[in-house]
């Protein structure tokens, strides 16, 4: 997880490592110039060969110096400078005198090993695994160690200074081992690169893929070249020239990549302009995604009171804890504000992330406050729904108690009285008393039924909204046309809310509207249940007092829905509830 680093630290770091860069650059230029001078002094017959030596050395040193300067913390810069330097030194073997020749010949193969190292260490200068370390180690041993052995055994062409035991046959054998082992190292390195390229994140800049491709081509060419050399395949010289040409191209691709990153940083400037327009939370995300060139960017705002991250809508989110996403934390005035959740490819763009984070700090703080507000609203809505749910549960239990208890007992009692009456000898007075008691019970049962039904419509939980609304329509004192386009059962709270909307509205129609007809429709529209009750009555209903509409609105709004009423004077009344039921 990357944390925004205060700017003064990076400046300090940059000052500290300034010094070796010009020294390295000067050294490399000197070495290259020397190789050129030595070759010319020796009257080298092949100017193309001389040119190609410099063609590799100069771009590597240049790219290395720039990389060293731009990203002092990365070891890639020094590594590239070393590669250029080694290449320049290897040019010294074109010299006529034994001293420079021996020195140059010792570096003959080293650039290949350094190049493999650069390939694998790109882009942050570190090798990623022990395996890569071993691979590079083998390459260095082969390039340096076996080269020295070769020289000690008398070398290949000319005489050298460390020639202690001349053994031409042995030299040829050692050289074969050296070339083939390096060729194998390059091919394995190629495999590593191919795997890495496949796992590149989506917004990983084209330039990085481009650099890796150029590395890969060069590695193939080097591997092929060494095999050709080992088996004395004709055409070696031509392939060698093309290979050097290609190897010299990859630092150019690398420089283009740096330029690309630099362009990305200029996006921070655009971002500041865009943020000046005070974008909304969604536009803010888009602007940041644009500046970071990561369309998958998401923002997570930190709410200290809730001890959680939330999204734009105030809903809790978790920061990623795997490798597929990275979170960069943004602080402002010492307080944590938000996290940018982005592609891991942006990890090696610390400066860009810092720049974007710093530029967007205030806007993020604003958006965080909005998200906090939404989270509170969400919490409130949740607690309102819970209160209504709890009330509903209570009502359901109460109705169940009445149904299973008092109502059953009264019916059984009434039945017992009837049986008693049947057995009784003909005694009109007693029978009359019994009948009176029974009608008392019947009255109580009727009242109890109305109460229980008002508390909770049992038919709703048992048989669903459609049957319950059919019953409501049947009990209504005026004709009700039903249009029900709901097939499945919905969640209980949705059904209950819809039921109360219909029952309350029909009761209002019966009481106040003087209507001759009403229409009730239930319809699924996307993720919403739309309940509509229309009458042809007087209209002009009082939506605030007495009508129970406020309570209905509470119920519907607690579920995240909306209740609307149109009631023009003389134009009937239309009540519409939209209840989310996804």
């Amino acid at each position: 997880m990357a944390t925004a680093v205060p700017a003064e630290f990076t400046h300090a770091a940059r000052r500290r490592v300034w010094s070796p860069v010009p020294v390295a650059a000067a050294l490399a230029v000197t070495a290259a110039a020397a190789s050129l001078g030595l070759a010319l002094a020796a009257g080298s017959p092949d100017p193309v060969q001389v040119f190609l030596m410099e063609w590799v050395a100069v771009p590597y040193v240049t790219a290395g110096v720039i990389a060293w300067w731009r990203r002092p913390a990365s070891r890639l810069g020094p590594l590239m400078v070393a590669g250029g330097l080694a290449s320049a030194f290897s040019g010294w073997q074109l010299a006529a005198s034994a001293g420079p020749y021996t020195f140059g010949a010792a570096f003959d193969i080293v650039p290949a090993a350094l190049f493999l190292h650069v390939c694998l260490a790109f882009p942050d200068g570190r090798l990623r695994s022990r395996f890569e370390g071993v691979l590079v180690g083998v390459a260095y041993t082969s390039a340096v160690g076996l080269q020295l052995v070769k020289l000690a055994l008398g070398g290949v062409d000319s005489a050298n200074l460390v020639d202690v035991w001349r053994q031409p046959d042995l030299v040829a054998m050692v050289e074969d081992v050296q070339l083939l082992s390096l060729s194998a190292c390059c091919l394995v390195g190629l495999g590593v690169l191919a795997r890495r390229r496949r796992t590149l994140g989506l917004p990983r800049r084209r330039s990085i893929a481009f650099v890796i491709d150029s590395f890969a081509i060069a590695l193939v060419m080097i591997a092929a070249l060494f095999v050709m050399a080992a088996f004395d395949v004709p055409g070696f010289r031509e392939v060698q020239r093309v290979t050097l040409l290609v190897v010299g191209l990859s630092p150019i691709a690398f420089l283009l990549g740096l330029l690309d990153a630099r362009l990305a940083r200029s996006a921070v400037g655009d971002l500041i302009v865009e943020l000046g327009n005070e974008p909304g939370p969604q536009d803010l995300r888009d602007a940041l995604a644009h500046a970071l060139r990561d369309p998958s960017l998401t923002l997570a705002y930190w709410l200290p009171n809730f001890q959680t991250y939330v999204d734009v809508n105030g809903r809790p989110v978790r920061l990623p804890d795997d490798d597929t996403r990275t979170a960069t934390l943004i602080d402002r005035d010492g307080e944590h504000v938000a996290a940018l959740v982005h592609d891991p490819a942006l990890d090696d763009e610390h400066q860009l992330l810092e720049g974007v984070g710093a530029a967007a700090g205030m806007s993020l703080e604003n958006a965080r406050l909005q998200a906090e507000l939404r989270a509170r609203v969400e919490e409130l809505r949740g607690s309102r729904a819970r209160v209504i749910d709890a009330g509903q549960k209570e009502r359901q239990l109460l109705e169940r108690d009445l149904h299973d208890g008092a109502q059953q007992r009264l019916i059984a009692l009434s039945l017992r009285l009837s049986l008693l009456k049947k057995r009784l000898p003909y005694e009109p007075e007693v029978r009359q008393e019994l009948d009176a008691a029974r009608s008392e019970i019947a009255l109580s049962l009727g009242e109890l039924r109305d109460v229980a039904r008002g508390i909770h419509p049992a038919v709703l939980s048992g048989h669903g909204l459609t049957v319950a609304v059919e019953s409501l329509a049947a009990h209504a004192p005026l004709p009700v046309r039903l249009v029900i386009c709901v097939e499945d059962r919905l969640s209980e709270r949705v059904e209950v809310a819809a039921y109360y909307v219909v029952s309350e509205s029909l009761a209002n129609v019966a009481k106040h509207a003087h209507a001759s007809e009403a229409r009730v429709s239930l319809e699924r529209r996307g993720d919403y249940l739309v309940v509509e009750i229309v009458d042809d009555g007087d209209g002009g209903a009082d939506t605030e007092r007495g009508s129970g509409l406020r309570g209905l609105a509470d119920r519907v709004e607690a579920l995240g829905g909306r209740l609307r009423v149109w009631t023009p004077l003389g134009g009937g009344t239309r009540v519409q509830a939209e209840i989310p039921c996804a």
Partner: protein
Amino acid sequence: MRVAIAEDSVLLREGLARLLGESGFEVVAQVEDAEELLLKVRSYRPDVAIVDIRLPPTHNDEGLRAALEIREKHPSVAVLVLSQYVELGLALKLLADSAEGVGYLLKDRISDVGEFLAAVTRVANGGSALDPIIVSTLLSRQRADDPLARLTPREREVLELMASGSSNQGIADRLVITLRAVEKYVSSIFGKLGLPSTGNESRRVLAVLTFLRS
């Protein structure tokens, strides 16, 4: 006449069994849940099953579902559903295909012993019994251009009894008029409401119900 009773309240179940037993019915099964009812119906084939609409375990619609299943699997067994509340939606569900051998009554009706026993007998014999509340609720609605308004008070009474499932003889007994007079009223009612006349009393119930509902 053989009866099965499914009712989870012990008081009521025993009371029902006693009432039916004393009135000459043979109670072949007394059960407290739907599963057991279906089992007993399969083995004893009663003439009629009296089913509480709310049965364990959830007390939601187990009873109604059992009733519908009996209707489907054992057409020879009539079903009389008892309910604490009268829900038109449920009555219509129960009577979806035919009203033959189907009843839907409020539990309160049990204590009106004579009426209740008559309803049980009627349903067991393939007739219908629909709670008067359903009928009166449907009749009490105001309608624009109401054909019911053209009925005489006597015709209205006959319509109510007819819709509850009473036979012509039953209506005649109840209103203390001749069978012949009932038949005259019935054909007059069907004429005024524009319904095709039918001799079958259960089909008559369905036709009237459909008319009242519309």
